[in-house]
């Protein structure tokens, strides 16, 4: 059993990277490996948006990631610096910045870049999708 970590840096519906990452994730699990976590960085932070509303006949990427978390305990970390400048924040960040709304919620967690390096340290493979 190999322990994988993913770095996802493309936005859904603008880049095929999140789709590739998800397809790969399911193949990894099917081969009996483990996925320790996914780190969303750069435009990849948009994967976490709770306001994402694709047409009904298209996959909702946020829901697909959420399912991966719920069924396989995959941790979903979002880089806080990359998220804030791109208009993504959690409830507590919204309070800190005096905003009325937020668009990041569990199972996605805002965290620092250190988490990416920690993920790289504690996994056997870090695969980048961008």
């Amino acid at each position, binding site marked *: 059993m190999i322990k*994988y970590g993913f770095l996802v840096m493309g936005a859904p519906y603008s880049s095929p990277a999140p789709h590739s990452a998800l*397809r790969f994730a399911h193949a990894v699990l099917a081969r009996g490996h483990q996925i320790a976590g996914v780190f969303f960085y750069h435009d990849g932070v948009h994967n976490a948006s709770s306001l994402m509303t694709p047409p009904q006949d298209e996959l909702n990427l946020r829901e697909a990631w959420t399912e991966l978390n719920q069924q396989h305990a995959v941790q979903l970390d979002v880089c806080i610096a990359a998220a804030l400048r791109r208009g993504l924040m959690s409830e507590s960040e919204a309070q800190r910045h005096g905003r009325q709304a937020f668009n990041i919620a569990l199972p996605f967690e805002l965290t620092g870049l250190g988490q990416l390096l920690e993920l790289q340290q504690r996994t056997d493979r*870090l*695969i980048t999708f*961008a």
Partner: protein
Amino acid sequence: MILHILTKAPDSSASTQMQQAIGDQDAVLLIEEAVTAALDPSWAAWQQCHTRIFLLSEDLIARGLASIAAGNGLPTLEMDGFVALTEQYEKTVTWY
């Protein structure tokens, strides 16, 4: 030994940079836009390391290039084979 994953077209700067970084023992997987390399038998990377370049089958099919890849005798992999490559190669570098 590194697995290089290319996601951009063979004439992109990402591809040029990858070609500079490929070592003798390395392998290459073409995914997303990179599968358009199936159209171009003159792409320098084919000569550089022909036996160890693979194309992701489902990305070929989505783009209508599967029969061209088969006609050119290019090695394709399913998503399962992609995982197998990452089992074999401890390091992967994605070029985008």
